[in-house]
């Protein structure tokens, strides 16, 4: 029965990571990455490493999400940001949305 839990955990981890790295929309990718961090924290708890699970929970829930969303906001080419003078509509070299497949 615990084996089933392990298999589900690994399945979820791999599918979250794969989807997070392959989905087109960058925002969805960020949300999936935050969820991947949560599943990784569950995995540390399962593997008997509560120290690391606390660190992963604190960093994954508190810092990574805020950091990635802030960077996503700054990389948005279309959204006008009054704080910076530049407003550009064209895609940029490091632009967030020019994922090619």
């Amino acid at each position, binding site marked *: 029965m615990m084996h089933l839990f392990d298999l589900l955990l690994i399945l979820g981890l*791999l599918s979250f990571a794969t989807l*997070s790295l392959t989905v087109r929309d960058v925002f969805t990718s960020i949300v999936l*990455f935050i969820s*991947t961090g949560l599943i990784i924290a569950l995995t540390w708890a399962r593997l008997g490493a509560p120290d690391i699970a606390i660190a992963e929970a604190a960093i994954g829930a508190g810092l990574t999400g805020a950091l990635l969303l802030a960077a996503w906001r700054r990389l948005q080419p279309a959204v006008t940001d009054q704080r910076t003078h530049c407003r550009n509509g064209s895609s*940029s*070299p490091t632009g967030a949305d020019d994922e090619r497949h």
Partner: protein
Amino acid sequence: MSTSLLFSLCGIALFLLGLYVALTTSAMLRRILAINIMGNGVFMLFIASAYQRGEDGVLITDPVPHALVLTGIVVAVSATALALTLVCRLHELSSASHEGPE
């Protein structure tokens, strides 16, 4: 198949997945995410190798890999933040030079 081996294989899969995406994608933010996934795969290999059951079924975990991974996680989030800062700065500079008075 033991639990340790199962999660070790999962760690290897995560590492290879992250490596593939980091080498093939062209979007910077996604590359940073991929490198993070790679790091998590390595951490999982460490923690899975530290997970052992004794003869009487009681859980024995090796604290040294745990300490190493704890250090690694904090350094990883810090490096991620630095990479994000650099990417955002590069994006702002290049878009300013596209729009700028030239």
